[in-house]
Protein backbone atom coordinates (compact mmCIF):
# COMPACT_ATOMS: atom_id res chain seq x y z
CA UNK A 1 0.00 0.00 0.00
CA UNK A 2 2.88 2.38 -0.77
CA UNK A 3 1.83 5.82 -1.91
CA UNK A 4 3.78 6.60 -5.03
CA UNK A 5 6.84 8.76 -4.47
CA UNK A 6 6.88 8.63 -0.67
CA UNK A 7 10.02 7.47 1.09
CA UNK A 8 10.06 5.14 4.07
CA UNK A 9 12.36 5.14 7.06
CA UNK A 10 14.08 1.92 8.21
CA UNK A 11 11.41 1.70 10.91
CA UNK A 12 8.38 1.56 8.61
CA UNK A 13 7.61 -2.09 9.37
CA UNK A 14 7.83 -1.40 13.11
CA UNK A 15 5.22 1.34 12.79
CA UNK A 16 2.82 -0.82 10.86
CA UNK A 17 3.28 -3.68 13.32
CA UNK A 18 2.55 -1.30 16.20
CA UNK A 19 -0.68 -0.15 14.58
CA UNK A 20 0.64 3.14 13.24
CA UNK A 21 -1.71 5.23 11.08
CA UNK A 22 0.65 6.12 8.24
CA UNK A 23 0.44 9.53 6.56
CA UNK A 24 2.49 11.59 4.17
CA UNK A 25 4.91 14.01 5.84
CA UNK A 26 7.90 15.79 4.35
CA UNK A 27 8.10 13.30 1.51
CA UNK A 28 7.98 10.32 3.87
CA UNK A 29 5.35 7.83 4.99
CA UNK A 30 5.25 8.41 8.74
CA UNK A 31 3.03 7.40 11.66
CA UNK A 32 0.74 10.21 12.82
CA UNK A 33 -0.37 8.08 15.77
CA UNK A 34 -0.43 4.48 16.99
CA UNK A 35 -3.14 4.49 19.65
CA UNK A 36 -4.21 8.06 20.15
CA UNK A 37 -2.53 11.46 19.95
CA UNK A 38 -3.73 12.32 23.46
CA UNK A 39 -2.44 9.07 24.97
CA UNK A 40 0.93 9.40 23.25
CA UNK A 41 1.22 13.05 24.30
CA UNK A 42 0.45 12.16 27.91
CA UNK A 43 2.92 9.27 27.85
CA UNK A 44 5.73 11.67 26.89
CA UNK A 45 4.80 14.12 29.62
CA UNK A 46 4.49 11.49 32.36
CA UNK A 47 6.65 8.52 31.34
CA UNK A 48 8.35 8.51 27.92
CA UNK A 49 7.54 8.11 24.27
CA UNK A 50 9.69 6.86 21.40
CA UNK A 51 9.59 8.74 18.10
CA UNK A 52 11.00 7.76 14.72
CA UNK A 53 12.60 10.94 13.41
CA UNK A 54 14.73 9.25 10.76
CA UNK A 55 13.14 11.43 8.12
CA UNK A 56 15.17 14.39 9.37
CA UNK A 57 18.17 15.37 7.27
CA UNK A 58 21.86 15.29 8.22
CA UNK A 59 24.50 17.44 6.51
CA UNK A 60 28.20 17.28 7.33
CA UNK A 61 30.39 20.33 6.92
CA UNK A 62 34.08 19.42 6.90
CA UNK A 63 37.41 21.07 6.32
CA UNK A 64 39.90 23.52 7.80
CA UNK A 65 37.42 26.37 7.16
CA UNK A 66 34.34 24.50 8.38
CA UNK A 67 33.70 26.89 11.27
CA UNK A 68 34.02 29.97 9.08
CA UNK A 69 31.51 28.46 6.69
CA UNK A 70 29.00 27.54 9.38
CA UNK A 71 29.36 31.02 10.90
CA UNK A 72 28.50 32.53 7.56
CA UNK A 73 25.33 30.53 6.84
CA UNK A 74 23.95 30.60 10.40
CA UNK A 75 22.71 33.49 12.57
CA UNK A 76 24.02 32.04 15.84
CA UNK A 77 27.62 32.12 17.06
CA UNK A 78 29.32 28.73 16.95
CA UNK A 79 32.87 29.92 17.59
CA UNK A 80 32.87 29.06 21.28
CA UNK A 81 31.49 25.54 20.90
CA UNK A 82 33.54 22.68 22.27
CA UNK A 83 33.31 19.18 20.83
CA UNK A 84 30.16 17.47 21.94
CA UNK A 85 27.95 20.56 21.99
CA UNK A 86 24.81 21.29 20.01
CA UNK A 87 23.26 24.65 19.20
CA UNK A 88 19.91 25.65 17.72
CA UNK A 89 20.09 28.20 14.93
CA UNK A 90 18.67 29.48 11.66
CA UNK A 91 20.04 28.73 8.21
CA UNK A 92 19.77 32.14 6.60
CA UNK A 93 18.74 33.70 3.31
CA UNK A 94 20.26 37.06 2.30
CA UNK A 95 16.87 38.62 3.15
CA UNK A 96 17.49 37.71 6.79
CA UNK A 97 14.81 35.03 6.65
CA UNK A 98 14.92 31.29 7.32
CA UNK A 99 15.97 28.66 4.82
CA UNK A 100 15.38 26.31 7.76
CA UNK A 101 15.93 26.01 11.48
CA UNK A 102 18.50 23.43 12.51
CA UNK A 103 20.78 21.99 15.14
CA UNK A 104 24.52 22.42 14.68
CA UNK A 105 26.66 19.78 16.41
CA UNK A 106 30.40 20.28 16.77
CA UNK A 107 32.04 16.93 16.05
CA UNK A 108 35.59 18.32 15.75
CA UNK A 109 37.32 21.61 14.97
CA UNK A 110 36.95 20.77 11.29
CA UNK A 111 33.61 18.94 11.41
CA UNK A 112 30.11 20.28 12.04
CA UNK A 113 27.05 18.05 11.83
CA UNK A 114 23.83 19.82 10.88
CA UNK A 115 20.42 18.27 11.52
CA UNK A 116 17.64 19.80 9.43
CA UNK A 117 13.92 19.36 8.82
CA UNK A 118 12.79 16.45 6.66
CA UNK A 119 10.73 18.58 4.30
CA UNK A 120 13.68 20.90 3.67
CA UNK A 121 16.61 18.49 3.40
CA UNK A 122 17.02 18.64 -0.37
CA UNK A 123 16.47 22.40 -0.47
CA UNK A 124 18.89 22.99 2.42
CA UNK A 125 21.60 20.82 0.94
CA UNK A 126 21.30 22.43 -2.50
CA UNK A 127 21.61 25.86 -0.86
CA UNK A 128 24.58 24.89 1.31
CA UNK A 129 26.30 22.94 -1.48
CA UNK A 130 26.01 25.92 -3.79
CA UNK A 131 27.62 28.20 -1.21
CA UNK A 132 30.35 25.67 -0.42
CA UNK A 133 31.28 25.35 -4.06
CA UNK A 134 32.70 28.87 -4.03
CA UNK A 135 34.10 28.68 -0.50
CA UNK A 136 37.63 27.57 0.25
CA UNK A 137 38.65 24.86 2.65
CA UNK A 138 35.25 23.32 3.14
CA UNK A 139 33.28 20.38 1.73
CA UNK A 140 29.68 19.47 2.48
CA UNK A 141 28.03 16.06 2.38
CA UNK A 142 24.38 15.06 2.48
CA UNK A 143 24.50 12.19 4.94
CA UNK A 144 20.76 11.82 5.44
CA UNK A 145 20.68 8.30 4.01
CA UNK A 146 23.40 7.22 6.43
CA UNK A 147 21.48 7.89 9.61
CA UNK A 148 18.32 6.70 11.28
CA UNK A 149 17.23 8.80 14.24
CA UNK A 150 15.14 7.84 17.26
CA UNK A 151 13.95 10.30 19.90
CA UNK A 152 13.19 8.96 23.38
CA UNK A 153 11.50 11.79 25.26
CA UNK A 154 10.02 12.01 28.75
CA UNK A 155 10.98 11.93 32.44
CA UNK A 156 11.85 8.20 32.24
CA UNK A 157 14.11 8.60 29.17
CA UNK A 158 17.42 8.33 31.06
CA UNK A 159 16.21 5.40 33.16
CA UNK A 160 15.09 3.52 30.05
CA UNK A 161 18.13 4.22 27.88
CA UNK A 162 20.80 3.66 30.56
CA UNK A 163 20.65 -0.16 30.62
CA UNK A 164 21.15 -0.21 26.85
CA UNK A 165 24.42 1.71 26.80
CA UNK A 166 27.72 1.81 28.64
CA UNK A 167 27.84 5.56 28.14
CA UNK A 168 27.23 7.45 31.36
CA UNK A 169 24.07 9.33 30.37
CA UNK A 170 24.16 11.51 33.46
CA UNK A 171 27.39 13.00 32.13
CA UNK A 172 25.61 14.23 28.99
CA UNK A 173 24.17 17.59 29.86
CA UNK A 174 21.39 19.33 28.00
CA UNK A 175 22.34 20.15 24.39
CA UNK A 176 25.45 17.97 24.58
CA UNK A 177 26.15 14.72 22.79
CA UNK A 178 28.66 11.93 22.65
CA UNK A 179 29.52 8.92 20.54
CA UNK A 180 28.78 5.58 22.15
CA UNK A 181 26.83 2.40 21.63
CA UNK A 182 23.18 1.65 22.13
CA UNK A 183 22.24 -2.01 22.30
CA UNK A 184 25.73 -2.73 20.99
CA UNK A 185 25.39 -0.51 17.91
CA UNK A 186 27.45 2.61 17.28
CA UNK A 187 25.43 5.71 17.94
CA UNK A 188 25.51 9.44 18.47
CA UNK A 189 23.63 10.05 21.70
CA UNK A 190 22.42 13.64 22.13
CA UNK A 191 20.43 15.13 24.97
CA UNK A 192 18.24 17.17 22.63
CA UNK A 193 14.59 17.04 21.66
CA UNK A 194 11.47 18.75 20.43
CA UNK A 195 9.02 18.06 23.24
CA UNK A 196 10.02 20.21 26.21
CA UNK A 197 10.82 17.07 28.21
CA UNK A 198 14.15 15.50 29.15
CA UNK A 199 15.25 12.98 26.59
CA UNK A 200 17.67 11.81 23.96
CA UNK A 201 17.98 11.76 20.22
CA UNK A 202 19.91 8.71 19.09
CA UNK A 203 21.50 8.53 15.65
CA UNK A 204 22.34 5.04 14.36
CA UNK A 205 23.06 3.37 11.04
CA UNK A 206 19.82 2.54 9.20
CA UNK A 207 20.47 -1.20 9.26
CA UNK A 208 20.54 -1.15 13.07
CA UNK A 209 17.54 1.09 13.62
CA UNK A 210 14.90 -1.60 14.02
CA UNK A 211 16.92 -3.49 16.62
CA UNK A 212 17.54 -0.34 18.65
CA UNK A 213 13.85 0.64 18.38
CA UNK A 214 12.75 -2.75 19.65
CA UNK A 215 15.36 -2.78 22.41
CA UNK A 216 14.20 0.58 23.74
CA UNK A 217 10.55 -0.50 23.69
CA UNK A 218 11.39 -3.82 25.36
CA UNK A 219 13.24 -2.00 28.12
CA UNK A 220 10.68 0.76 28.46
CA UNK A 221 7.45 -1.14 27.83
CA UNK A 222 7.06 -2.40 31.40
CA UNK A 223 7.52 1.21 32.54
CA UNK A 224 4.78 2.47 30.26
CA UNK A 225 6.96 3.72 27.40
CA UNK A 226 5.11 3.62 24.09
CA UNK A 227 5.80 4.60 20.49
CA UNK A 228 4.60 8.13 19.75
CA UNK A 229 3.71 9.61 16.37
CA UNK A 230 3.86 12.95 14.58
CA UNK A 231 0.50 14.04 15.93
CA UNK A 232 1.77 13.98 19.51
CA UNK A 233 5.09 15.45 18.36
CA UNK A 234 3.20 18.51 17.16
CA UNK A 235 1.06 19.00 20.28
CA UNK A 236 4.13 18.52 22.49
CA UNK A 237 6.36 21.00 20.65
CA UNK A 238 3.61 23.60 20.50
CA UNK A 239 3.05 23.38 24.27
CA UNK A 240 6.81 23.81 24.66
CA UNK A 241 6.67 26.96 22.52
CA UNK A 242 8.87 25.56 19.78
CA UNK A 243 8.55 26.70 16.19
CA UNK A 244 7.73 24.48 13.24
CA UNK A 245 9.25 25.47 9.90
CA UNK A 246 6.53 25.89 7.38
CA UNK A 247 4.10 27.03 10.05
CA UNK A 248 5.65 29.56 12.46
CA UNK A 249 8.82 30.33 10.53
CA UNK A 250 9.49 30.23 6.80
CA UNK A 251 11.28 32.06 4.02
CA UNK A 252 9.29 35.22 4.72
CA UNK A 253 10.04 35.49 8.45
CA UNK A 254 13.15 36.72 10.25
CA UNK A 255 14.34 35.50 13.66
CA UNK A 256 13.46 38.92 15.11
CA UNK A 257 9.84 38.71 13.95
CA UNK A 258 9.65 35.13 15.18
CA UNK A 259 10.73 35.94 18.72
CA UNK A 260 14.01 34.11 18.15
CA UNK A 261 16.39 37.01 18.81
CA UNK A 262 18.20 34.75 21.24
CA UNK A 263 19.66 32.70 18.37
CA UNK A 264 20.99 35.83 16.66
CA UNK A 265 24.51 36.95 17.60
CA UNK A 266 25.21 40.11 15.66
CA UNK A 267 28.62 40.64 17.24
CA UNK A 268 30.01 37.34 15.99
CA UNK A 269 30.78 38.96 12.65
CA UNK A 270 29.25 38.89 9.23
CA UNK A 271 26.70 36.28 8.17
CA UNK A 272 24.19 35.92 5.36
CA UNK A 273 21.24 38.20 6.06
CA UNK A 274 23.00 40.09 8.84
CA UNK A 275 22.26 43.63 7.64
CA UNK A 276 18.51 43.05 7.40
CA UNK A 277 18.46 41.56 10.88
CA UNK A 278 20.62 44.35 12.29
CA UNK A 279 18.21 46.92 10.88
CA UNK A 280 15.29 45.10 12.50
CA UNK A 281 17.05 44.98 15.85
CA UNK A 282 17.66 48.74 15.64
CA UNK A 283 14.37 49.88 14.12
CA UNK A 284 11.95 47.26 15.32
CA UNK A 285 9.61 45.05 13.34
CA UNK A 286 5.99 45.45 12.19
CA UNK A 287 4.82 42.05 13.31
CA UNK A 288 5.72 39.53 15.98
CA UNK A 289 5.06 35.87 16.60
CA UNK A 290 3.16 35.37 19.85
CA UNK A 291 1.69 32.51 21.80
CA UNK A 292 -2.01 32.68 22.61
CA UNK A 293 -4.77 30.81 24.36
CA UNK A 294 -8.38 30.74 23.29
CA UNK A 295 -10.81 32.42 25.67
CA UNK A 296 -13.96 31.56 23.72
CA UNK A 297 -14.61 27.99 22.67
CA UNK A 298 -13.05 26.61 19.51
CA UNK A 299 -9.69 25.49 18.22
CA UNK A 300 -7.67 28.06 16.30
CA UNK A 301 -5.82 26.38 13.46
CA UNK A 302 -3.04 27.18 10.99
CA UNK A 303 -4.22 29.74 8.46
CA UNK A 304 -7.13 31.18 10.47
CA UNK A 305 -7.34 34.97 10.41
CA UNK A 306 -6.49 37.11 13.45
CA UNK A 307 -8.62 40.24 14.01
CA UNK A 308 -8.17 43.17 16.39
CA UNK A 309 -11.92 43.45 16.96
CA UNK A 310 -14.73 40.94 16.44
CA UNK A 311 -16.50 42.97 13.75
CA UNK A 312 -13.36 43.76 11.78
CA UNK A 313 -13.42 42.61 8.20
CA UNK A 314 -9.68 42.92 7.65
CA UNK A 315 -7.38 40.39 9.31
CA UNK A 316 -4.25 41.84 10.93
CA UNK A 317 -2.41 38.56 11.17
CA UNK A 318 -2.62 34.81 10.85
CA UNK A 319 -2.60 31.82 13.13
CA UNK A 320 0.52 29.84 12.26
CA UNK A 321 0.01 26.85 14.56
CA UNK A 322 -2.88 25.85 16.77
CA UNK A 323 -4.35 22.85 18.48
CA UNK A 324 -6.04 21.61 21.61
CA UNK A 325 -3.40 21.40 24.36
CA UNK A 326 -3.76 18.13 26.24
CA UNK A 327 -1.70 19.38 29.18
CA UNK A 328 -3.50 22.72 29.55
CA UNK A 329 -6.89 21.35 28.53
CA UNK A 330 -7.59 24.30 26.25
CA UNK A 331 -6.78 25.45 22.71
CA UNK A 332 -3.42 27.17 22.26
CA UNK A 333 -1.57 28.51 19.27
CA UNK A 334 0.94 30.86 17.74
CA UNK A 335 0.15 33.79 15.47
CA UNK A 336 1.79 36.80 13.88
CA UNK A 337 0.22 40.00 15.19
CA UNK A 338 1.06 43.66 14.65
CA UNK A 339 3.78 44.53 17.13
CA UNK A 340 1.59 46.87 19.19
CA UNK A 341 -0.97 44.09 19.70
CA UNK A 342 1.66 41.47 20.48
CA UNK A 343 1.76 42.00 24.24
CA UNK A 344 0.93 39.33 26.85
CA UNK A 345 -2.57 39.97 28.18
CA UNK A 346 -3.79 41.68 25.00
CA UNK A 347 -6.92 40.17 23.52
CA UNK A 348 -7.61 39.60 19.87
CA UNK A 349 -10.07 37.54 17.84
CA UNK A 350 -9.61 34.50 15.70
CA UNK A 351 -11.99 33.87 12.85
CA UNK A 352 -13.12 30.27 13.27
CA UNK A 353 -15.40 29.12 10.46
CA UNK A 354 -16.83 32.59 9.99
CA UNK A 355 -17.24 33.47 13.67
CA UNK A 356 -14.94 35.75 15.67
CA UNK A 357 -13.75 33.99 18.83
CA UNK A 358 -11.81 35.70 21.59
CA UNK A 359 -8.16 34.84 22.27
CA UNK A 360 -5.50 36.28 24.58
CA UNK A 361 -1.75 36.69 24.01
CA UNK A 362 0.36 34.76 26.53
CA UNK A 363 4.09 34.36 27.15
CA UNK A 364 5.80 31.32 25.71
CA UNK A 365 6.24 28.54 26.55
CA UNK A 366 2.78 27.28 27.47
CA UNK A 367 4.39 24.41 29.35
CA UNK A 368 7.84 23.83 30.81
CA UNK A 369 9.06 20.92 32.86
CA UNK A 370 10.85 21.59 36.12
CA UNK A 371 14.52 21.88 35.30
CA UNK A 372 16.40 18.70 36.20
CA UNK A 373 20.11 18.64 36.82
CA UNK A 374 21.38 16.35 34.10
Amino acid at each position, binding site marked *: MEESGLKRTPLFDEHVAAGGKMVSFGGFEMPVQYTSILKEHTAVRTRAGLFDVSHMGEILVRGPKALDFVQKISCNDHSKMTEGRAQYTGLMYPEGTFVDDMLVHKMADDEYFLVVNAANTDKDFAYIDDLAATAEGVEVFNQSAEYAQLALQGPLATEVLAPLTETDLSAIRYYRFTRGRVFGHEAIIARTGYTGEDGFEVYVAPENAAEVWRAILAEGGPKGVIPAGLGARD*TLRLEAGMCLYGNDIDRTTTPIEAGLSWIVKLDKGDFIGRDVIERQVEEGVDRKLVGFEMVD*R*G*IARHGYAALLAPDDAEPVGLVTSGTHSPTLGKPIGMAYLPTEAAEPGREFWVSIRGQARRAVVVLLPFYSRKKKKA
Partner: protein
Amino acid sequence: MSVPSDLLYTKTHEWMRREGDLAVVGITHYAQDQLGEVVYVELPEVGRSAGPGEELGTLESVKAVSEFFAPAGGEVVEVNERLNDEPNLVNDDPFGGGWLVKMRIREESGLLDAAAYDRLVAEESH
Protein backbone atom coordinates in the same frame (compact mmCIF):
# COMPACT_ATOMS: atom_id res chain seq x y z
CA MET B 1 -18.52 -4.31 12.96
CA SER B 2 -22.17 -4.18 12.09
CA VAL B 3 -24.23 -1.23 13.18
CA PRO B 4 -27.36 -1.45 15.36
CA SER B 5 -30.24 -2.65 13.21
CA ASP B 6 -32.92 -0.56 14.88
CA LEU B 7 -31.41 2.74 13.69
CA LEU B 8 -31.45 4.62 10.41
CA TYR B 9 -28.34 6.11 8.83
CA THR B 10 -27.14 8.85 6.52
CA LYS B 11 -24.43 8.79 3.89
CA THR B 12 -22.60 11.33 6.05
CA HIS B 13 -22.39 8.82 8.90
CA GLU B 14 -25.05 10.09 11.27
CA TRP B 15 -27.50 7.70 12.92
CA MET B 16 -31.07 8.42 13.98
CA ARG B 17 -33.29 6.62 16.52
CA ARG B 18 -37.01 7.43 16.44
CA GLU B 19 -38.80 7.92 19.75
CA GLY B 20 -42.32 8.85 18.69
CA ASP B 21 -42.13 12.12 16.79
CA LEU B 22 -38.73 12.82 18.30
CA ALA B 23 -35.44 11.46 17.00
CA VAL B 24 -32.09 11.08 18.75
CA VAL B 25 -29.11 11.82 16.49
CA GLY B 26 -25.44 10.95 16.71
CA ILE B 27 -22.49 9.85 14.61
CA THR B 28 -21.54 6.25 14.00
CA HIS B 29 -18.62 4.25 15.32
CA TYR B 30 -17.01 4.43 11.89
CA ALA B 31 -17.30 8.22 11.86
CA GLN B 32 -15.73 8.69 15.28
CA ASP B 33 -12.92 6.33 14.38
CA GLN B 34 -12.14 8.36 11.25
CA LEU B 35 -12.25 11.60 13.21
CA GLY B 36 -9.95 10.62 16.04
CA GLU B 37 -10.31 11.84 19.58
CA VAL B 38 -13.01 14.48 19.83
CA VAL B 39 -11.88 17.34 22.04
CA TYR B 40 -14.64 19.89 21.28
CA VAL B 41 -18.24 19.58 20.24
CA GLU B 42 -20.19 22.55 18.89
CA LEU B 43 -23.89 21.87 19.21
CA PRO B 44 -26.74 23.85 17.67
CA GLU B 45 -29.06 26.03 19.73
CA VAL B 46 -32.27 24.50 20.99
CA GLY B 47 -35.06 25.74 18.75
CA ARG B 48 -32.91 25.74 15.63
CA SER B 49 -34.68 24.52 12.52
CA ALA B 50 -32.87 22.45 9.93
CA GLY B 51 -33.69 20.75 6.66
CA PRO B 52 -32.43 17.24 5.91
CA GLY B 53 -28.71 17.33 5.25
CA GLU B 54 -28.19 20.78 6.75
CA GLU B 55 -25.14 21.30 8.94
CA LEU B 56 -26.06 21.18 12.63
CA GLY B 57 -22.69 21.54 14.31
CA THR B 58 -19.07 20.50 14.39
CA LEU B 59 -16.85 17.96 16.06
CA GLU B 60 -13.23 18.92 16.57
CA SER B 61 -10.44 16.44 17.02
CA VAL B 62 -6.80 17.32 17.62
CA LYS B 63 -6.07 17.18 13.91
CA ALA B 64 -9.34 17.98 12.16
CA VAL B 65 -12.78 19.55 12.18
CA SER B 66 -15.80 17.66 10.97
CA GLU B 67 -19.36 18.86 10.53
CA PHE B 68 -22.37 16.77 11.35
CA PHE B 69 -25.66 17.08 9.52
CA ALA B 70 -29.37 16.76 10.23
CA PRO B 71 -30.51 13.31 9.10
CA ALA B 72 -34.05 14.63 8.66
CA GLY B 73 -35.86 17.97 8.57
CA GLY B 74 -37.11 19.32 11.87
CA GLU B 75 -36.38 21.36 14.98
CA VAL B 76 -33.70 20.82 17.60
CA VAL B 77 -35.43 20.29 20.94
CA GLU B 78 -32.51 19.13 23.09
CA VAL B 79 -28.71 18.93 22.89
CA ASN B 80 -26.34 16.69 24.83
CA GLU B 81 -24.80 19.16 27.30
CA ARG B 82 -22.58 16.44 28.78
CA LEU B 83 -20.41 16.71 25.69
CA ASN B 84 -19.15 20.12 26.80
CA ASP B 85 -17.16 18.50 29.59
CA GLU B 86 -16.93 14.98 28.21
CA PRO B 87 -16.44 15.23 24.44
CA ASN B 88 -14.79 11.80 24.55
CA LEU B 89 -18.25 10.24 24.90
CA VAL B 90 -18.59 10.63 21.14
CA ASN B 91 -15.66 8.24 20.75
CA ASP B 92 -16.34 5.95 23.70
CA ASP B 93 -20.09 5.50 23.25
CA PRO B 94 -21.15 6.85 19.85
CA PHE B 95 -24.54 5.10 19.78
CA GLY B 96 -25.37 5.76 23.43
CA GLY B 97 -23.99 8.43 25.77
CA GLY B 98 -22.31 10.19 22.81
CA TRP B 99 -25.64 11.25 21.26
CA LEU B 100 -25.54 14.78 19.86
CA VAL B 101 -29.05 16.25 19.53
CA LYS B 102 -32.73 15.39 19.75
CA MET B 103 -35.00 16.72 17.03
CA ARG B 104 -38.72 16.94 16.43
CA ILE B 105 -38.98 15.45 12.94
CA ARG B 106 -41.09 17.05 10.20
CA GLU B 107 -39.85 15.28 7.13
CA GLU B 108 -37.72 12.26 6.52
CA SER B 109 -36.34 10.71 3.36
CA GLY B 110 -33.40 8.90 1.82
CA LEU B 111 -32.11 7.26 4.99
CA LEU B 112 -30.23 3.98 4.95
CA ASP B 113 -31.05 0.91 6.96
CA ALA B 114 -28.32 -0.94 8.85
CA ALA B 115 -27.47 -3.29 5.98
CA ALA B 116 -27.21 -0.46 3.46
CA TYR B 117 -25.03 1.55 5.83
CA ASP B 118 -22.72 -1.41 6.47
CA ARG B 119 -22.28 -1.69 2.70
CA LEU B 120 -21.47 2.01 2.43
CA VAL B 121 -18.78 1.72 5.08
CA ALA B 122 -17.34 -1.37 3.44
CA GLU B 123 -17.03 0.53 0.17
CA GLU B 124 -15.53 3.63 1.79
CA SER B 125 -12.90 1.74 3.73
CA HIS B 126 -11.84 -0.38 0.75
